[in-house]
């Protein structure tokens, strides 16, 4: 039900296995083979990054001032909608602004349709018309496709609830928060429960925060210690030193060193805490020169991480799922490096304009 994830429509109807999701998408592609061939699209995650950024830009427009939760809900609506509807049949700008319009109502921060359409028109003048009935019609389509299942459970709540338990520092909490923000561009919201995602984000934040802090403060000694401890591996050809705040604000994908460290540290951490948990000693593609992410003892793991590991081991959290989430996030940050806004804009423009979907 509404507050109970276990009885929720989200768990019953909108959580899939990877195989189920792949099958659903395959069927959809098969049905629209011609369109798929005519308008090739980049990696789905890159498109999602684009939509996420567009949505953020749109929602931050002066008079909309949408709250984070509505933004997250709108993104989940997009993921659900496009799991059932071929994207090349739609005007994604209209779908995303409508998703936000609907999410605002569900999250109790409603905006008038005329207002949202007005702002959308300002944001994307060449693909959005001023006709409000288009958004009204799209709203019907969204709700129909989602079978009126509009209540979404987010990881933010679990994160806030568990933050005192894990004694998260403000930096760790905001890092975890940003990881959750980022996970909406992946398939994770369709694959795992919000608490698994929240726990993964908290774990990543706790593990990565010292790495990130040391890196941004330029403390070579500490980094070296971490490296030799086998917990953290840094790329020797690292990026220029950045301030923690800047990294947090721009998301972790901005910092390749953090990204590489994340890979090895989390592997080591999960591996050491749960031998046989699936990630120990396993080299991930593109992991580079990791500094010993084996099942060996990892002295550099802080007491905090250790405590968290113990908590996880005692809880009945699905560790396999957490490993899966971690790998998904790592591979997201890899893919993110190839992201170019212009490319996405172009391919979307092609089918929207080419098929007259902006009319």
């Amino acid at each position, binding site marked *: 039900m509404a507050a109970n994830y276990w009885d929720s429509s989200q768990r019953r109807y909108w959580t899939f296995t990877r195989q189920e999701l792949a099958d659903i998408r395959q069927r959809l592609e098969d049905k629209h083979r011609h369109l798929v061939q005519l308008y090739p699209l980049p990696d789905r995650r890159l498109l999602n990054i684009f939509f996420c950024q567009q949505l953020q830009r749109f929602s931050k427009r002066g008079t909309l001032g949408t709250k984070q939760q509505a933004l997250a809900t709108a993104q989940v609506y997009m993921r659900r909608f496009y799991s059932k509807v071929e994207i090349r049949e739609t005007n994604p700008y209209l779908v995303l602004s409508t998703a936000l319009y609907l999410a605002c109502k569900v999250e109790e921060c409603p905006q008038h349709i005329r207002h949202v359409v007005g702002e959308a028109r300002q944001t994307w003048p060449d693909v959005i018309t001023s006709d409000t009935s*288009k958004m*009204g019609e799209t709203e019907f389509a969204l709700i129909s496709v989602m079978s009126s299942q509009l209540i979404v459970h987010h990881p933010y709540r679990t994160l806030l609830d568990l933050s005192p338990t894990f004694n998260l520092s403000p930096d760790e909490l905001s890092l975890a928060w940003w990881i959750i923000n980022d996970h909406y561009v992946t398939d994770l919201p369709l694959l795992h429960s919000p608490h698994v995602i929240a726990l993964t984000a908290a774990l990543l934040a706790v593990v990565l925060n010292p790495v990130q802090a040391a890196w941004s403060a330029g403390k070579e000694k500490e980094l070296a210690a971490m490296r030799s401890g086998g917990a953290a591996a840094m790329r020797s050809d690292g990026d220029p030193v950045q301030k923690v705040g800047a990294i947090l604000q721009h998301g972790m994908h901005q910092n390749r060193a953090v990204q590489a460290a994340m890979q090895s540290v989390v592997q080591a951490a999960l591996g050491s805490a749960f031998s046989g948990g699936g990630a120990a000693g396993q080299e991930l593609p593109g992991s580079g020169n990791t500094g010993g992410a084996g099942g060996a003892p990892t002295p550099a793991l802080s007491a905090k991480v250790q405590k968290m590991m113990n908590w996880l081991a005692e809880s009945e959290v699905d560790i396999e799922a957490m490993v899966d989430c971690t790998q998904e996030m790592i591979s997201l940050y890899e893919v993110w490096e190839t992201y170019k806004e212009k490319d996405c804009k172009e391919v979307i423009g092609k089918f929207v304009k080419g098929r007259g979907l902006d*009319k």
Partner: protein
Amino acid sequence: MLAGSYLNQKRVRERYDIIGFISSGTYGRVFKARGRTGQVGEFAIKKFKPDKEGELQYTGISQSAIREMALCTELSNPNVVHTVEIILEDKCIYIIFEYAEHDLLQIIHYHTQTSRPAIPPMVIKSILYQLLNGVLYLNRNWVMHRDLKPANIMVTSAGAVKIGDLGLARLFYKPQATLFAGDKVVVTIWYRAPELLLGSRHYTTAIDLWAVGCIFAELLSLRPIFKGEEAKMDGKKSVPFQRNQMQKIVEILGLPTVDRWPLLKHMPEYGQLSNLAQGNSRVLNPVGLEKWYTSTVAHNRYVVPNSSPPGTKPDVPGRDGLALLQGLLEYDPMKRLTAEQALQHPYFPTNQAERDVLGKNCFAWSFTDYPNRRVSSDDNDIRTSSLPGTKRGGLPDDSLRPGKRLKE
């Protein structure tokens, strides 16, 4: 805009035969229907009215309709009206519910005729038990109903009590703004809790329990216990103090005191209480709930069922009933019974087997055959946008819900 054929996957008239029209209100109209594709049972189809009369364009769905749709798809409990499906078709929204033959308003009305006895105490107990179970389920799931009243409590012909009409319900988990900001006026005035009347910005599920108390009292006395007159919104923004309604409460319960309700002083309309007595002597000489209860019970003609052994006394609501009523009509929302506490009250049996019986069929103790819900067959065309004369006032969404929503 959107090419493709995913819209209108389902059509109402392909799936249902409309038997007739049940009622209309600000929200739209309700029809009785039967399934055409083998669905078992009967259905009530609620068709939402478009925002403007004769609207031919999509104008965006009102927030209350969105709330109702979202909650209806999630909720599942024997004491909450079951939602079968929701169909969006031709710019209209249809929510299909399981059909309930009766509602509490209709049952109360049936008994008000002078020749008829009061509602049997065990029937009241069973209704209350089931109602509280439904409220418990809602509140546990962070849902506040906010519009509990006899007309919204359905009863099936098998005696199952089901909470209906979630048009004002909403989630209350960590609300982003105060609840007041979203909906200035909630709960039909007679069932409105004192903290709402006194302008509280942050109210809780306790408002639902006050309404349950009012419904309990109404089942006993067959008329609303606090039948005030609603002060209309004068300006556009300001919500008037519901002086008359507050007076009606005080005439029975007496004035609330800071002693019993410590946060009373902080209520925005606290200052209004001091002059409630002006021109109304009854405010200073309240009846008292105990006296109200005993005289109500004494006044009711409780009868002995024909089937009972000779010499049996009629079953009468006892002291426990009074205690429960006092716990529900408690001024301080912090002290008011929660649904969980109310269900543990000595008024209800502790034995689980007895409780199960109570939870199943409120008519088990009834010797009345209630008439079926009136269904008019003059108007069974679900396509037409609206009945003549049911014009909507053009109120902005959520700003105001008029006191009585059912046209009678």
